[in-house]
């Protein structure tokens, strides 16, 4: 891009400021929108007998809502650690795909890659991609990443401390906090009839295997079998 003529500076300056303001506001809104999820994650985690330190570590290092929630839900239900970690990992695979897109878009180098990788999640990726045409992808990525990272961690700690003070999951209804959160996460992905069928198949397969396989395993079995079925039917 060539330098704009001098008399256009006020205009570009104003539009740049407007873009910065728009990105700041959207990043903050997205950050605030993850806090209820963080609160419920913290509360559900301590019900699953994780310590507050362990809950914080997950939010600081793992930093991916669906994976974190899946991990503690399966542990809380008495599932094996293998099923819990396996499910969390498979849910985290999509972040690797996001990372490849962010890498192609922003081309970070050196230590920046490590920081960028850590905060490459649904929200930061979506914001970076949506601001790519305006040339503000990097600003959008970092603003959203910072906002979500800080608010996610703060809300997680609060949720864990509050959860410690609450009663048993069944009497408080906290045993459906996880499923309710998953429904909210799942709904935007059920855009096609195909995806709805696959989701339904996965849920049914998982339930059918509940009485015959170790606790926690039905989730992996249902999830992977349904994906396999999708690939077979698509051929």
């Amino acid at each position: 891009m060539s330098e704009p003529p001098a008399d256009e500076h006020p205009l570009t300056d104003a539009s740049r400021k407007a873009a910065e303001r728009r990105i700041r506001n959207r990043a903050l809104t997205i950050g605030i929108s993850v806090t209820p999820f963080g609160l419920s994650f913290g509360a559900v985690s301590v019900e699953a007998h994780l310590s507050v330190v362990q809950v914080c570590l997950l939010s600081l290092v793992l930093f991916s809502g669906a994976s974190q929630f899946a991990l503690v839900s399966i542990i809380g239900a008495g599932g094996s650690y293998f099923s819990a970690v396996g499910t969390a990992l498979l849910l985290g695979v999509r972040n690797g795909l996001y990372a490849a897109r962010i890498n192609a878009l922003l081309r970070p180098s050196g230590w920046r890659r490590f920081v960028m990788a850590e905060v490459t999640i649904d929200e930061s990726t979506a914001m970076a991609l949506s601001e790519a045409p305006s040339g503000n992808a990097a600003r959008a990525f970092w603003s959203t990443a910072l906002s979500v990272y800080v608010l996610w961690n703060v809300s997680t700690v609060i949720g864990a401390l509050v959860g410690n003070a609450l009663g048993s999951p069944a009497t408080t209804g906290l045993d459906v906090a996880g499923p309710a959160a998953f429904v909210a996460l799942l709904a935007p992905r059920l855009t096609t009839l195909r995806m709805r069928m696959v989701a339904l198949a996965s849920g049914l397969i998982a339930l059918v295997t509940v009485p015959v396989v170790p606790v926690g395993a039905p989730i992996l079995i249902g999830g992977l079998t349904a994906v396999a079925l999708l690939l077979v039917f698509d051929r």
Partner: protein
Amino acid sequence: MKLWLAVLIASASCAALKLAGFVVPARLLESAVARRILEALPVTLLSALISVSVFATGNHLMLDSRAAGLAVALILVAIRAPFLVVVVAACATAAGVHAL
């Protein structure tokens, strides 16, 4: 101890997956089959997670207060209620039905 190990392994490997995207050649992830798997995987896992955490306790299938909570969550998500409303209403419903 084992719980600590699970927390550490899950944290490290999920962080590594993110980093992998910056290192692995993009075309490997962009193949049609890989894309279809990556798109479907969160959907199937979340769905299985929902059905098992609502309709199972250990190795037994069960229909209890959690089903009522799920029904409320489904309705509220369908009418695009905010996240906090969905979770709180689902929990309140399940707690209410449990108390009956």
